């Protein structure tokens, strides 16, 4: 078996364990109405450690494969999906540590997914909601890593000459950073819908986490569009060819913009948690299709 496949398999299992741990504590806390401080410390660190170890293993596999093929990763569906999963781990865990956007003054302490503690939230229920979103996001990422590994195992097309340039590597990296956030945005909204049945106030925290993740990833997605246009100018003489990978990337970008603006639309607040949840599902679908159709970039 190829080394990179083994590494990705290990990464997927590690992330699944982290996500399962996080979800188990969240669900137990929901059942018991709270969670012990010591237990919280342990289970907050555990998933994050799993996520970062999984990320390192995943990146190791991608680097090894790139070295062997002498091409930047992201030219095939499997590689592009793995890049998205890696970026999701990085963004989701980073934002969850910091409780805000990147470069937030959060320090190394992991204070619960999003580390949120709203006014009057003496039981830390908002933190539990954020943890639920984080755990769900990790589980989804783990499944994505395993699925992409199977895809990379089955389909090994030769790298197109256009994938040998650093501009393509830049486009792939930026796109995955922009698209990866959608996994945690969707998980946050699912958590909100689930918890909204129990506690309407707490349910607002998970979209808050989702919003922060998307806010952190959206500029990267915009930069990916620019890098993609530059690469296409160099490789195909036109900035925009309308191939599926291009189209899904723009769809994910447009839906991201709509999602971010939804927070300031009064009518959307009256409709509750459903409009952002629907948008986040559409955004996630577009993100996965943008990565899954990476092969169309070389048509």
């Amino acid at each position, binding site marked *: 078996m190829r080394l990179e496949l083994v590494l990705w398999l290990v990464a997927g299992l590690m992330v699944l364990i982290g996500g399962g741990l996080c979800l188990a504590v969240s669900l137990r806390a929901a059942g018991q109405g709270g969670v012990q401080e010591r237990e919280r410390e342990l289970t907050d660190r555990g998933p994050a450690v799993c996520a970062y170890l999984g990320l390192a293993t995943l990146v190791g596999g991608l680097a090894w494969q790139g070295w062997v093929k002498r091409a930047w990763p992201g030219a095939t569906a499997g590689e592009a999906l793995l890049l998205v999963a890696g970026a999701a781990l990085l963004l989701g865990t980073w934002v969850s540590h*910091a*409780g*805000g*956007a*990147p*470069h*937030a*003054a*959060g320090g190394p302490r992991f204070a619960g997914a*999003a*580390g*949120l*503690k*709203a*006014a009057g*939230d003496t039981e830390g229920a*908002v933190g539990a909601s*954020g943890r639920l979103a984080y755990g769900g996001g990790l589980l989804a990422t783990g499944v994505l890593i395993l699925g992409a590994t199977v895809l990379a195992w089955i389909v090994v097309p030769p790298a197109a*000459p*256009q994938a*040998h*340039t650093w*501009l393509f590597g830049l486009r792939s990296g930026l796109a995955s950073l922009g698209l990866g956030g959608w996994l945690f945005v969707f998980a946050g909204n699912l958590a909100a819908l689930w918890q909204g049945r129990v506690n309407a*106030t*707490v349910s*607002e*925290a998970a*979209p*808050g*986490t989702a919003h922060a993740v998307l806010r952190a990833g*959206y*500029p990267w997605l*915009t*930069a990916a*569009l*620019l890098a993609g246009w530059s*690469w296409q*100018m*160099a*490789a*195909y*003489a*036109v*900035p925009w060819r*309308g191939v599926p990978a291009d*189209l*899904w990337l*723009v*769809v994910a970008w*447009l*839906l991201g*913009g*709509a999602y971010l*603006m*939804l927070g300031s*639309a009064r*009518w959307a607040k009256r409709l509750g948690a459903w409009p952002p949840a629907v948008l986040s599902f559409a955004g996630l679908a*577009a993100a996965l*299709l943008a990565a899954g*159709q990476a092969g169309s970039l070389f048509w």
Partner: protein
Amino acid sequence: MSNPPPENQKLEVHLIAKTTERTPRPDLFDTLWRAAGGTTATILLAVTLALTLTVAAIFPQQPPGLDGAAEERWLSAAAAGYPGLGPALRNLGIFNLLASPWRRILLALIAFHLLLRLANQARATWLARRQAQDPAPVHAGLPSREIPLPGPLNPAMERLADALVHRYPALALESSPEGALVYAERRGPEIAGPLVSYLGGLCLLLGLLINGAAGWVLNDVTLAPGGSARAPRTSLDISLKAIAGNGADAVSSVVASVPGGTRSGTAGYTRPFIWGTLWIVQRATGPALAVTARDASGKAILLQRAAGQETGEVISLPFTSSETEQAFAAPQRDIIFRVVNYPALPDQGYSGPVFLIEAYGGSDLSKPLLSRTVENEATIFVGDATFVLRREQHAVLSAASVPGLAPLALGGLLLLAGIVLSLWWGHARAWIDVTATDGALVAVATAASPAGDRGVLQRLVGLIAGTEAADAP
């Protein structure tokens, strides 16, 4: 004691009084302006464009540059891929959505909307430099903390305003006998973020408009060395002089000619040949077979490519992944050649690429006069004619005129700068809810910032605690 505000920093505290006055009814123009330039319109347009592009991503789209019979062939083939639905999809223009009037209308609406937003935002940005906007609602999930304040209420609020105004120049305060609500904002370059992004979006649309009106694309021009092609509807001739290198390192030497001049250069993979607004790229390379022929006296024999009816003393046959078989003829000698390109013929001892050449007499195509394989170079004799065959490479080139590239690049950079400013810069908002109960004041401070909510809250608590310390004896 807190320091007085600097002279150049005018304190603006807006007392928001609850009023019973009826708000004047907005006129129709105002209503339309607000509707067309509002957030809801932005969301609707973004989602509509996303849906349009989704349909375009699901169904195959007609490549640019096709016209006449080629367009008809492509559309028929695309419709045939959807039995039963094909003709309806074709009539609806689904296979040409990216060049349809619907897309143009949508982009025009977006341009109009961006213009309105730009006008609104320019005004709002100017006003918002120092003035707090309507207090945004506090949403659950933001970090907050309780801090006791020494009473009574009014002097405490004055001290609080003094302490906050240095860090949060835009301040709004609403007070009642039971307590007070302070909403404070700190704004920096990020207030220009939306303005810059709308401007970027408009520049992008301008670039697209210019490209659509004055640009053109010529795709998949297959040329062997010495070959040339003319871009339709333009006076541009592209010639391929030679190809150097192999695989990913292959580089084509090309010559571009227009009535005003000629320019030569090289085009490799992702290394385009650029001449003004003209871009030429090499999209693929592959094998080709160059053929020359002479009679017994050494005189050149005219050759003809069957496929393109191209004639000459030297012809070159390009082989692509979909076109592995070619034919050519020597009409004066009544000889027809069939050439097949094989990546390998292991059963005949060839592990690498090889050509199979068969020559037929013009009147009998059932049995070849000659059959042989050619790896790199060979000379074959048919009657008194000598044919020299040599392996070479062909290149698949694309050319495009992109006159709107400058506004596109500027628009993209502005869009990115605007989004980075809006989402990542240090815009900070703070809410302080002060309640007076049994003579004691308690402030609940909440903070939000794209740069991190908790860090901003920590500094805010420090500021509020400072007012307490200043009050202490």
